[in-house]
C-alpha cells in the first residue's frame, strides 16, 4: 500500500449531540452525545479503519464528516491540493462542489439504491446533481465504471431489483466513484454480504484505491475485516476515540483496556476450543447519561479512583500511537498474537 503522510482530511474536536425533547413544548431535556470530541487525520491514499460496537457513534461520525448532519461543534478540514477548506463553514452551493471530493458507500445495498431508477441513472446521479458533463459523457463514464467494478455495460439499463447483494454493492461503489472523489466514507460496506462475496468487494475496494489514489474511512464492527483493509485503526467507544495507531501496533500492542477486551472477544480461526477471554460485564453506558471520568471506567477491570474522576485526554504515547487512558504506561495489555 502506498503511504503518504500528506493529510487529506483533518477532523478536530468534532461533536455531534442530538437533543432529547420531551413534553408538549418539546423542551430539550438532555443530549445524546453520539460523537463527543473526536480528532483524527486521514492521509492521502490511506485507509483508516474505524471499529467499535453498535451505538458507539461510528456511523454518526462518518455522516457528520460529510456534513450529512449539521455538527454541534468542531472542524473538518479538507485538503484540496494546497487549498484547505473548512467544510462546516461553506455555503450550500460551495458544499456541493466539496462533496464531489467526498462520497459515501452505504451499509445496506438493498436500501441505498433507488429502485425506481435504472442502474445507469443511479450511477450518474452524482454527475447530474453537480451538472457535470453531457448525457453522452455521463453514459460513457458509467459504462467504464461498471466494467471497473466487475459488471457489464448491458447491466446499465436494468433496475436494481434484478441484482444480488454483492452486485448492488458494486453499483453503489460505481456511484460513489462516478464523481471522482478523493475521499470515501465506507460505512460497513460488506456487512450484509456472504463471506465469499465479501472478499470480492474488499479486494475490489483495494484495487480501486490503488488505481485512483483514494483515501477511505472504513467503518466496521468486524476486527478481521478492519485488519485486512486498514493502514491505521481507530477504536471508538460511546462517542469517543479511545485509541488509534498503525494497524499492527494496535493489534499486537493495544494500550487501552477496551481495545484489549475487544481483541480478546473476537473469535479466532486458528484457536480451537475454549480460551480465556476477557469478558466485559454489562453493557456500554447510555450516551445521554455518561459516567464521570473515563467513559470506559464502568466496565474496565483496571479502573482506579482517578479514572472515576478525571476524563483522560487522548495523548500520544509513542510515535503515532494515541490513547485516552490514564494508565496506558503502567498496564501491560495483551494484544492479538499471530
Amino acid at each position, binding site marked *: 500500500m502506498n503511504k503518504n503522510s500528506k493529510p487529506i482530511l483533518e477532523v478536530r474536536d468534532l461533536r455531534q449531540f442530538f437533543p432529547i425533547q420531551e413534553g408538549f413544548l418539546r423542551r430539550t431535556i438532555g443530549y445524546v452525545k453520539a460523537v463527543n470530541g473526536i480528532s483524527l487525520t486521514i492521509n492521502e491514499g490511506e485507509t483508516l479503519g474505524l471499529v467499535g*460496537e*453498535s451505538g458507539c457513534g461510528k456511523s454518526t461520525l462518518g455522516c457528520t464528516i460529510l456534513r450529512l448532519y449539521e455538527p454541534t461543534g468542531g472542524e473538518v478540514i479538507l485538503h484540496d491540493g494546497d487549498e484547505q477548506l473548512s467544510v462546516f463553514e461553506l455555503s450550500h452551493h460551495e458544499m456541493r462542489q466539496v462533496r464531489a471530493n467526498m462520497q459515501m458507500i452505504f451499509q445496506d445495498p438493498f436500501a441505498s439504491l433507488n429502485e425506481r431508477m435504472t442502474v445507469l441513472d443511479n450511477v450518474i446521479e452524482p454527475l447530474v446533481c453537480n451538472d457535470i458533463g453531457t448525457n453522452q459523457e455521463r453514459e460513457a463514464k458509467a459504462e467504464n465504471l461498471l466494467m471497473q467494478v466487475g459488471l457489464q455495460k448491458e447491466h446499465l439499463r436494468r433496475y436494481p431489483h434484478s441484482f*444480488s447483494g*454483492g*452486485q448492488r454493492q458494486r453499483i453503489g461503489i460505481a456511484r460513489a466513484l462516478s464523481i471522482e472523489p478523493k475521499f470515501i466514507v465506507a460505512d460497513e460496506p460488506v456487512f450484509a454480504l*456472504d*463471506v*465469499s*462475496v*465479501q*472478499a*470480492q468487494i*474488499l*479486494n475490489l475496494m483495494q484495487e480501486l484505491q490503488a488505481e485512483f489514489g483514494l483515501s477511505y474511512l472504513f467503518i466496521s*464492527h468486524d*476486527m*478481521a*475485516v478492519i*485488519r*485486512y483493509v486498514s493502514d491505521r485503526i481507530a477504536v471508538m467507544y460511546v462517542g469517543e476515540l479511545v485509541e488509534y495507531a498503525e494497524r499492527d501496533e494496535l*493489534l499486537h500492542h493495544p494500550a487501552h483496556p477496551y481495545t484489549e*477486551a*475487544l*481483541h*480478546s*472477544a*473476537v*473469535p*479466532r*480461526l*486458528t*484457536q*480451537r*476450543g*475454549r*480460551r480465556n*477471554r476477557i*469478558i*466485559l460485564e454489562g*453493557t456500554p453506558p447510555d450516551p445521554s447519561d455518561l459516567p464521570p471520568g473515563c467513559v470506559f471506567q464502568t466496565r474496565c477491570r483496571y479502573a482506579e479512583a482517578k479514572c472515576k474522576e478525571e476524563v483522560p485526554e487522548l495523548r500520544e504515547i509513542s510515535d503515532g500511537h494515541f490513547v485516552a487512558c490514564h494508565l496506558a504506561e503502567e498496564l501491560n495489555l495483551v494484544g*492479538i*498474537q*499471530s
Partner: protein
Amino acid sequence: MPKDNTTDLILEIKNLKTHFILNAGTIRAVDGVDLTISRGKTLGVIGESGCGKSVTAHSILRLIPSPPGEIVDGEILLHRDGEVIDIAKLKPTEEAMRNIRGDDIGMIFQEPMTSFGPLHTIGDQITETILIHKKAADKSEAKSQAVDLLRQVGIPNPEQRVDGYPHEFSGGMRQRAMIAMALCCSPMLLIADEPTTSLDVTIEAQILELLADLQAQTGMAIMLISHNLAIVSEMADDIAVMYLGKRVEFGTTDAIFDNPLHPYTQGLWRSIPSVDGPLEKLVPIPGVVPSPRDLPSGCVFASRCSEFMPGICDQPKPVPIVEADPDHFVACYLYDNEQV
C-alpha cells in the same frame, strides 16, 4: 465422532430432503443431508445464506410451514432412553411432536428481538413452557423455576427481572432469557440458530461463554448454526459444511480446518479475513450462488469450482459421498477413486 459409540447418539439425520413446492417450481432447500449429533458434543453447521442450514434445524423441530414446505424423504431419528423415534414420520401438530419440541430438543433463534411475544412478561413466557411440559405442579413453583433459570443464565436481579417485559431487556439480556426458556425442560439437544449474529462482539463473547458453561454443566448436545466460521471453530467438536441444500463435507473441527477437502470449504477458508493468522490477500470464490430454483444437474458447486472436471462433475446424478479419511466425509469426485 459418531461411529465409535452408538449409545451416545442423540440425533441422526439420514438423507433428509425438505422441499418447498411452489407454483413457480420446487425449491430443494435441503436435498439429501446426513448429520449425527452425540451427547455432550457440539456440531457446527456452516454455510452461506440459502444453503439450507436453518431449514435443516426447522425440519428437526417440524417447524416448516406446510404448505409449501414438505419433508419429502429421509429420516430424523431421535434416540431417547433406548427407543428411537423418527421425527420425520410424526405429524407436526400431534402430541408426541409437541412433547419433543421443548422437552427433548430446545431451540434458540437468531433474532432475540422478535422471538418473544411483546405482550407477556419474560417470566410468564418461561412459566408457560414449564407448565405445558408439566415440569412443575403449579404456577408459583414454575415461577420459582423461572427465576432459577434466569439466574443460571446470568441475568442480574432475576427476582425482579422475571416480571419484566421483553422490551425492557437489552439484546444480550434477551438472548440470555431465550436460552433460559430453551433450557427450562433440560433438553438433550439445544439447537442454536445464529445465536449471536445480531449481537456485538463483547456481548457475543458473553453468550458463547454461557453456552459452553451450560453444556459442561448439563451435558446437553448443541447444534450450532452459524455463518461465522471463527465462532464455529472455537465452539464445535464436529463440523458440517453445507452448500445449496447439500452437506458437502463433514468431519472433526480439526480435520475441517486443518485439512479441508471440498473445493468449497477450501474456497471459504481462502476468502475470510482473520484477526490472527497470516495477512494474505483474500481469494474470493468466483461467481454467485446459483438460484435454488434451477440447480445444476450434477455437483451443485460445479459452476464456481476451481477443480471442475468436464464430463465428470456435470453428470446428472448425485455426487458420491466419500470417506476420504476416517470419519471425514466429502461429497466430491476428486476423492472418488472410481472416477479419477
